[in-house]
């Protein structure tokens, strides 16, 4: 098992940024997804937040989360471009190589495919001088891309080398997107895969799905969909995905537990995935270059 393929997310953990990073590291992880608010909200300022991340020795999987970016006009568009530039700069300071972008849920966003592609293309071009890739994630309650398949079509239309997909297992499990759709995706276009499970067997409404996604996720192996999750990952492996897996577990209960305890759960999840699901062989040395470089 390649433990280093898996990473935690600072949004899963309570406490100060330094304590979160230490917990992640102590649980054996070598990479971490950074929630922007953890850095810019550092009590000693952004610089201290950036320093904490860089000195943690952890590789930055990426920065999250740019929301409601695409499909806007005029002043709203200009405002979101400013927000995006600020996030790209923070990502650059951290030595991060990916910015995670969620498909827009804004009622102001138009659903015209060309406009959405043009905006994402602009975002990708902004990211090029900073060496950052844009991972665009479809969500079932988005207005612009409801699943990875729709997001994939937009990414294809925008056609920019540093624009690709983030695929969230939760969205696949909860929306019942056909796994066969993965076969149509170029594995090189998948920049990030996020993993989580949840406790209920079924989510009925969009409202329930949104609430579950933002409050009640659990780590892989802890929820009710281990089988579905295993199928999903096996399928990704089969199409040739060999990038990072990040645990995007947002759970209100975990935010009331010591970060070490939560990180230990993440460690068990990574072990469960590696040993039970993936049984990955050692990578071929030349495949290493497909992985993002270590932070500078």
């Amino acid at each position: 098992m390649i433990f280093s393929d898996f990473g935690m997310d600072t949004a899963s953990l309570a406490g100060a940024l330094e304590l979160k990073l230490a917990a992640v590291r102590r649980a054996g992880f070598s990479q971490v997804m950074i929630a922007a608010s953890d850095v810019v909200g550092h009590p000693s300022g952004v610089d201290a937040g950036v320093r904490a991340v860089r000195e943690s020795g952890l590789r930055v999987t990426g920065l999250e989360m740019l929301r409601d970016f695409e499909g806007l006009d005029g002043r709203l568009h200009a405002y979101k471009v400013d927000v995006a530039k600020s996030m790209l700069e923070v990502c650059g300071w951290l030595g991060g190589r990916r910015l995670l972008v969620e498909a827009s849920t804004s009622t102001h966003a138009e659903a015209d495919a060309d406009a959405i592609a043009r905006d994402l293309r602009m975002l990708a071009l902004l990211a090029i001088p900073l060496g950052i890739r844009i991972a665009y994630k479809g969500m079932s309650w988005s207005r612009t891309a409801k699943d990875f398949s729709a997001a994939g079509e937009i990414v294809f239309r925008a056609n920019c080398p540093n624009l690709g997909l983030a695929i969230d297992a939760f969205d696949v499990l909860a929306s019942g997107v056909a796994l066969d759709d993965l076969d149509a995706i170029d594995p090189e276009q998948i920049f990030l895969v996020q993993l989580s499970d949840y406790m209920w067997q079924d989510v009925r409404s969009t409202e329930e799905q949104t609430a579950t996604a933002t409050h009640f996720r659990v780590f892989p192996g802890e929820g009710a969909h281990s089988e579905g999750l295993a199928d999903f990952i096996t399928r990704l492996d089969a199409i040739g995905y060999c990038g990072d897996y990040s645990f995007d577990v947002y759970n209100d209960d975990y935010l009331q537990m010591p970060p070490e305890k939560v990180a230990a759960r993440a460690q068990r999840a990574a072990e469960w995935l590696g040993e039970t699901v993936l049984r990955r062989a050692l990578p071929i040395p030349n495949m290493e270059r497909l992985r993002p470089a270590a932070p500078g």
Partner: protein
Amino acid sequence: MTNALDREAVAASHNPLGFDGIEYIEFATSKPQALGGVLERMGFRLIAHHRSREVELYRQGRMNIIVNAQAADVPRTVQPTERPVLSAFAVRVRDADAAFRRAQELGAWEIPVRARAMELNIPAIHGVGESLIYFVDRHDEFSIYDVDFRTIPGVDPHPPSLGGMHFFGIVQYVGADRTADWVEFYAQIFGFAPLPDSVRFGILPKGLLLQSPCRTFYLQLIEPEEPARYAPAEEHLQRVGFGTPDVLATVGILKSRGVEFLASERVHASDRGALTTASLGSVMFELVHDVPAPSAPPR
């Protein structure tokens, strides 16, 4: 009618900005005189000082080089150090403001005006690393240097070029697997087009070549060698290439002026090109066999 429109559309998509060569290239250094010495050996003459900043203008033929020793006052721009750094290049376009606005709409980062070496309102965007790219227009009608610079009395403001040297290209080092990103950047914003691998200039057959839409200027993108692929990516403009119709004759002229050229088994002067040794720790120039089109003869 339709055909004429089509042709116009093709011409516009080929050169959307009216790109017309390089107006100047800028170095940043805290030791401007040391770099000046290197430039003078290469045939450049100091012709003007900036009116208010520690910035100098060197020239030969149609080539202008700005040496900037002014401390930078915005992030992500070059802070002058003893080791000179290639800090900017200026592209000539039909309408600088229009080109600048278009670049921003496409996703370029603009630079606040006060950060630049020039006082004229020359719009600029961030390029690779800490470098900038300026947009200059009206280069035919008047000289942008007249406003910012005071010519040194008694100095010929238009010194001839040695061996017909002219700006040919810039070599840019990029991170591992980053070539496609930079191709996209230069293609989108400026209309550069990648050349097939079979087209090669000079003596270093590495990297990917991008041709400017005016077909007189090239960018060469070079990724790190295999063992260095895991090192943190330091992306920057590495060196300037000068075109010359007779490389070996120009090498002869420059050697007589004290310029040294690499003469190893792998890299040595030939009629295709030559590479100088590094001066001041980082400054090297490349000569490339190139005969400019008759429409733009070197002065």
